[in-house]
């Protein structure tokens, strides 16, 4: 989940997610890391991605930095960013329609020879 959000620009961002199986992992909650990541995340991409994976608690529009103080928001952010994990499925490039299959939680980003 994390990689699919942060990763992206092969030929455009964000990669669309095709879900076959989602797992939730328990990850330790760390507010410092979340605050560090907040400015780097493309919020809309994260909100859309987590909605596709079945978690619709995140607000649609970009929240301002003041929400970082609220513990409730951070918990939601933490869950969407770190605990949702795409186990089986695919990432699809929005421009070219190229599918990158995801197996056992590992996205296969290898390109063919003619795509380099």
């Amino acid at each position, binding site marked *: 989940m994390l990689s699919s959000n942060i990763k992206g620009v092969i030929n455009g961002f964000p990669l669309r997610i095709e879900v076959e199986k989602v797992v939730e992992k328990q990850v330790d909650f760390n507010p410092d890391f979340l605050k560090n990541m907040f400015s780097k995340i493309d919020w809309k991409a994260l909100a859309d991605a987590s909605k596709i994976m079945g978690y619709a608690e995140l607000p649609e529009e970009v929240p301002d930095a003041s929400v970082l103080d609220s513990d409730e928001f951070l918990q939601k952010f933490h869950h969407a960013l770190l605990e949702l994990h795409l186990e089986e499925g695919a990432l699809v490039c929005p421009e070219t329609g190229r599918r990158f299959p995801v197996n056992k939680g*590992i996205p296969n980003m290898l390109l063919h020879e003619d795509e380099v």
Partner: protein
Amino acid sequence: MFLWLSKTSTAPSCRSVKSPPPHSVKMSSRPELQAPPEIFYDDVEARKYTSSSRIVGIQAELSERALELLALPDDDVPRLLLDIGCGSGLSGETISEHGHEWIGLDISKSMLDVALEREADGDLILGDMGQGLGIRPGVIDGAISISAVQWLCNADKSCHEPRLRLKAFFGSLYRCLGRGARAVFQLYPENNAQRELILSYAMRAGFAGGVVIDYPHSSKKRKEYLVLTCGPPSMSTTTPNAKGEDENICSDDDDDDDDGSEDEENQTVCISDRHRPRKKQRITKKGKTKSWVLQKKEKMRSKGNVVPPDSKYTARKRKARF
């Protein structure tokens, strides 16, 4: 045949797979001479790699040092690091121990499967670093890579051009790193030309930095790290000091042409030298002096051996009654 010849002649440091492997290569000495990474690290090799306690120890030591060279700000905030060529997550384990999050990239599926079995904390991606990293700009706080970058210098497929692959790799790495972020690569270059090729492409991508060589005198413990910083050169981008290095002894072989005149002067033997008494450094009857012992210890230290610290007891004479 002609194609291959022209390729190697333009790139002396780049090796094509079609060239016959050197006959004296030992099994474990240089895996990149044997097969492409995604083929060499198959299921058997990946398991062997991770179950060898010697390799696990070395990997942990190398990653520890790489993290030290990365010089992340010491404020206990977990950073997002990139591990290029993460393999089975041995180096990632060290990152997790330091409390950082990491994303691992590797080309070998078998290695990543082992990483999954070992329940690595980071997120894993199957990808080829020579095709570019494909990570959004500016999100990564630092990158480490243990014994991986030298694989880029090999042309394992007909479509591989090492120079383009190096360019794609360093270019995409530069983009995804935040400003002022560092990247540390531990690497085993085959020769000086290969080291310079890697370094020159890193510089072309916009990185500042250089090579740090730990224990340059020791053949076994000698380790090279490429320390790169995003952004223009400044005081903060100077490369850190290496371990086990007393002075700048590493002379570049390329400078030989420029120093030719100086060398000639040094080589002429003065007449006074001929009459020098031959055994000048004869050890005195009293035995080895303290200065001799200290000198010897210093030499061993520079080779990276474990030497007891100097104290007032060092080389002290025993009392007669002993």
